[in-house]
């Protein structure tokens, strides 16, 4: 990662990759809510960050004034030529209406609860196998060696890609979501072998269709037309990128919480019926995903002089901590009854994998605490957090207690 100058004031010079933001963004957001509440920065070619629930939800629902053509905030100001067509590189997340609705309808059925819920036994098996690998270890890395490995195994299985490629998926996701600081030529060069790999997988599925998501995408039709290969390719990229780091972050953050909140851990162990409600509070409190939008045209919006192609950093995790909407917003309340969190976004771009993510999160926690009803942070200073728009612990050594 290239070195950026330290942030002087997050209200006027914010940077979501600044070490202070990466380590603990919540006090920064609270300060911005009180002072701004829309922060600005000249970095990244110019960007805005609404810190309130109202600001985030207003922009998330406003597809008239904001485009999703770029959803990962990158260095430099995207010009018209650098932007993909309204179909986008990874439909439907990078698509705008009206095409968005068509692209979304195509993959919604593949992620509806009727398809996802039956995966529970498989996910449980994946979790148990990973826990089995820990053997009698008294210290385990709950993120790197557990949370990290669950989502790619599940997604690879859904796509029908070879089992031995699990580690490769993780590399791909890292490259795409964490390369914001790499020069464009480097990113393009890094993407070449990945593209070749996906094309090879798609060709194999075309030659040998089977009952998996890749074959589904290759054969599904919009108005009697199959999807263009680049559409299928983009959607597979999207599924990998959106389905792996994100759930890893949510599972990791939840286990991090339980490792230093023994009272919450004991309640979950003793009251398993709490899980569905607890999962929503984990999602609110540790929402991993921040998205981006681009301003469509010069305008005054939320009191800010926005310019065409300014970035918007859309912080769903910040919205989830807004005390105007959530009572005791900065307290984790494991049985919080009223919880309209927006961890999965809002409006037409609601996370398509939310049913899968919620299921993986619940099962991953259930299995971990079933095997380890008591654990604590082995070394709080050893915990590291992912930089960028997907938040979660990377290294999470925990000590297993008797």
């Amino acid at each position, binding site marked *: 990662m290239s070195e950026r100058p330290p942030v002087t004031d997050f209200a006027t010079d914010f940077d979501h990759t600044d070490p202070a933001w990466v380590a603990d963004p919540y006090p920064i957001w609270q300060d911005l809510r009180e002072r701004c509440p829309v922060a600005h920065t000249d970095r990244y070619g110019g960007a805005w960050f609404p810190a309130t629930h109202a600001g985030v939800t207003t922009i998330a629902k406003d597809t008239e004034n904001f485009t999703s053509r770029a959803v990962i905030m990158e260095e430099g100001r995207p010009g018209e030529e650098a932007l993909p067509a309204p179909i986008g590189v990874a439909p439907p997340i990078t698509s705008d209406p009206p095409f968005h609705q068509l692209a979304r309808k195509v993959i919604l059925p593949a992620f*509806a609860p*009727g398809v996802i819920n039956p995966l529970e036994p498989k996910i449980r098996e994946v979790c148990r196998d990973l826990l089995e690998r820990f053997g009698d270890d008294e210290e385990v890395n709950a993120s790197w060696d557990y949370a990290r490995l669950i989502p790619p195994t599940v997604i690879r299985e859904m796509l029908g890609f070879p089992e031995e490629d699990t580690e490769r998926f993780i590399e791909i996701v890292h490259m795409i979501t964490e390369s914001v600081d790499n020069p464009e030529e480097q990113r393009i060069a890094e993407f070449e072998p990945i593209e070749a790999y996906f094309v090879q997988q798609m060709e194999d599925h075309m030659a040998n269709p089977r009952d998996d998501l890749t074959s589904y995408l290759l054969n599904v039709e919009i108005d009697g037309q199959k999807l263009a290969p680049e559409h299928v390719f983009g959607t597979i990229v999207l599924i990998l990128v959106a389905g792996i780091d994100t759930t890893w972050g949510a599972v990791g953050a939840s286990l991090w919480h339980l490792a230093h909140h023994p009272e919450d851990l004991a309640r979950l162990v003793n009251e398993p019926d709490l899980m*569905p409600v607890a999962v929503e509070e984990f999602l609110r409190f540790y929402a991993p995903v921040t998205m981006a939008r681009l301003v469509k045209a010069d305008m005054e919006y939320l009191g800010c002089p926005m310019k065409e192609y300014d970035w918007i950093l859309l912080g769903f995790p910040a919205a989830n901590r807004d005390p105007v909407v959530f009572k005791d917003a900065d307290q984790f309340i494991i049985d919080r*009854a009223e919880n*309209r969190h927006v961890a*999965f976004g809002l409006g037409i771009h*609601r996370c398509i994998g939310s049913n899968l993510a919620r299921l993986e999160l619940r099962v991953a926690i259930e299995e971990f605490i079933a095997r380890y009803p008591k654990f604590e942070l082995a070394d709080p200073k050893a915990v590291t957090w992912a930089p960028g728009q997907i938040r979660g612990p990377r290294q999470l050594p925990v000590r297993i207690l008797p």
Partner: protein
Amino acid sequence: MKVVIDGELCQGQGRCFSMAPDIFGFDDLGNGVVRGDGTLNPETLDMARLAQANCPEHAILIEGDE
């Protein structure tokens, strides 16, 4: 009293059918649907209110509820 889902507002967040599966189901796209005609008794009313309080899209309406 009767519970309804506003199909225009529902985005398939999935909160209603995971929280109150006796009252809500889902369709092929993953959007929430009310089971039966949505008539609530005192028991199901509490669950419907809970689901309403958890819908990020404000898509759940309870007709006749204050």
